[in-house]
């Protein structure tokens, strides 16, 4: 599903440049649930942004579902993001003047799905994250956990091939975090490929594979026995 080879990325800041990713190789198959760990500043978000086509690598190859991602213009990138990828952010990034269901329906709008179908699909995914009754509420009327559920529903609504989540539990308490991870595991059980950036070991252990980044290189890449989040819920 995801194939990267010798990926490099530097940030230029004035005269000096910061080499963040120093030749990464990684292969992720369909249906995997991968945690990317590492200390702060190790390049986790950078990697995820490149995988999400929100940013570009300086060199190296990246194949997403067999499609080489290279020299994309903004329009192409937008289309691929819409078709292949769903994002979940630490700070939710919901549009504050849109209700929960409208937020979930937004990626479908950019897929040119008609209004009625958008509404139906959005409701279906809201129901999946258990927020059907909250459909008409604004983000400001929802708790952090509920907001993240809406964000997950939104990421799912476009029916992408891969879900990318950057510190999706970073703004939540541990109980809510486990509920969210339970939802993520459920989605993964359905076959969706999911990448999660985190620096919390307990969250990472709820994934099936942990990739450790340090100083821009992968220092450890292990498959683990998945801890089910449901055990910690209630």
């Amino acid at each position, binding site marked *: 599903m995801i194939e990267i080879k010798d990926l490099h990325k530097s940030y230029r800041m004035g005269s000096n440049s910061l080499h963040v990713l120093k030749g990464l190789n990684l292969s992720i198959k369909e249906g995997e649930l991968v945690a990317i760990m590492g200390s702060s500043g190790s390049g986790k978000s950078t990697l995820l942004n490149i995988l999400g086509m929100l940013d570009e690598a300086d060199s190296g190859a990246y194949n997403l579902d067999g499609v080489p991602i290279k020299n994309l213009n903004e329009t192409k990138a937008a289309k691929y993001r*819409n078709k292949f990828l769903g994002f979940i952010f630490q700070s939710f990034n919901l549009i504050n*003047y849109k209700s929960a269901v409208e937020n979930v329906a937004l990626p479908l*709008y*950019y897929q040119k799905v008609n*209004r009625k179908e958008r509404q139906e699909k959005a409701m279906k995914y809201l129901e999946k994250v258990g927020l059907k009754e909250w459909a008409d509420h604004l983000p400001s009327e929802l708790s952090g956990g509920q907001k993240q559920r809406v964000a997950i529903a*939104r990421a799912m609504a476009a029916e992408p091939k891969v879900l990318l989540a950057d510190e999706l539990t970073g703004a939540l308490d541990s109980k809510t975090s486990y509920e969210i991870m339970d939802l993520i595991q459920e989605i993964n059980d359905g076959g969706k490929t999911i990448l999660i950036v985190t620096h919390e070991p307990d969250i990472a252990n709820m994934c099936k594979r942990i990739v450790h980044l340090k100083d821009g290189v992968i220092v450890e890449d292990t498959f683990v026995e998945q801890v089910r989040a449901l055990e910690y819920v209630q």
Partner: protein
Amino acid sequence: MFSRDRWQEIFQTISKNRLRTFLSGFTVALGIFIFTVLFGMGNGLKNTFNEFFMDDATNTFFIFPGRTSMPYKGFKKDRQIEFRNDDLEDIKKDFALYLDHITPRISKSALARYKGESNTYTTRAVAPSHQIMEKTIIMKGRYINEKDIKDQAKNIVIGRLVEIDLFGRSENALGKFLEVGGVIYKVVGVFQDDGGDNEERYIYMPYTTRQLLDKGTDKIDQIILTYKTDIGYAGAMAFDTSLFKYLKEKHKVAPQDQNGIYLRNTADIVKRNMMFANVLQWVVIFVGIGTLIAGVIGISNIMVFVVKERTKELGIRKALGATPASVIGLVLQESIFITTIAGYIGLVLGVGILSIMGNSFKEDYFITNPQVGMDVVITATLILILFGVIAGYVPARRAARVKPIVALRDE
């Protein structure tokens, strides 16, 4: 681009972001409103000006006798010059080439009385061609005619307001007899005049009748004449010079004497008035452009603010698959929509205020019938929309180019 979905998306952003909508809409509406009102009032000033100064015939000389200030050919200074009927005849004879119409005018104020009502008016004893020079409009009856002059008839033509003053609104003055300065005259006509109220309180009579009543004198107060317009401005100035010289010669006034005879040539005045009217026009245009520029600056600032405020939202949309074109389109279409609606509101309010104002500021502020041409206002609105688009496009394009991660970065 203009799909129903897009419009629904825009209506939602508009209605959910009231402050933003209000700010940009208000600026545009205010700009167009002020533009319309100022432009309309400017036009009103111009109208007043035209009405006051362009009302009378413009190819006119006024000639008054004065008192000499120099001795000349055996006459002492301080001699009162007087015009007589033969001056009219001589001018007619010797300047036939230039002359169009000529009339004497003898002004005198007199008490007019009809039944219980009385009032003092200025009477003007004139020849028939006076009508052309003053652009007097006959409402009913007729003006003084040649037969009145020949017969020294006791016929008068009264102003519209004289009729209202003395006869009331219901009674018809035509054919009635009016006592003016102790003499009974028959009213043969009622006139109106665009030159304002004062011009409608005159009483006209044949100059020969006046002279008869003044013990058979042939003295006249002043001579008014119009020249043929095809002689042009240069011809008028030449006519002016030679007529002035001719009259001074005839009445034995020293050529350098500034005071013996006065000749006022409206060709000069008209030229000055035209210049003033042009200056007014420029002031109006200047004010209009000024307000438009202020409006454009306002809308530009607001668009920058709007796009900045939306950076994060636009970043989210891009992460969800919005193309740069759709981001630009969303911002622009919203701004065009608001600008158009707001411009229209400003226009309607402005035109409304102007029509409420109507002529009520005429007396105190010299604003007559303030109006704006639809073409002018629509052009102004289009300019504002255009600049709103440009002002929105630049930041919208920048926002569309910003990488989503930059827009989404938590600060």
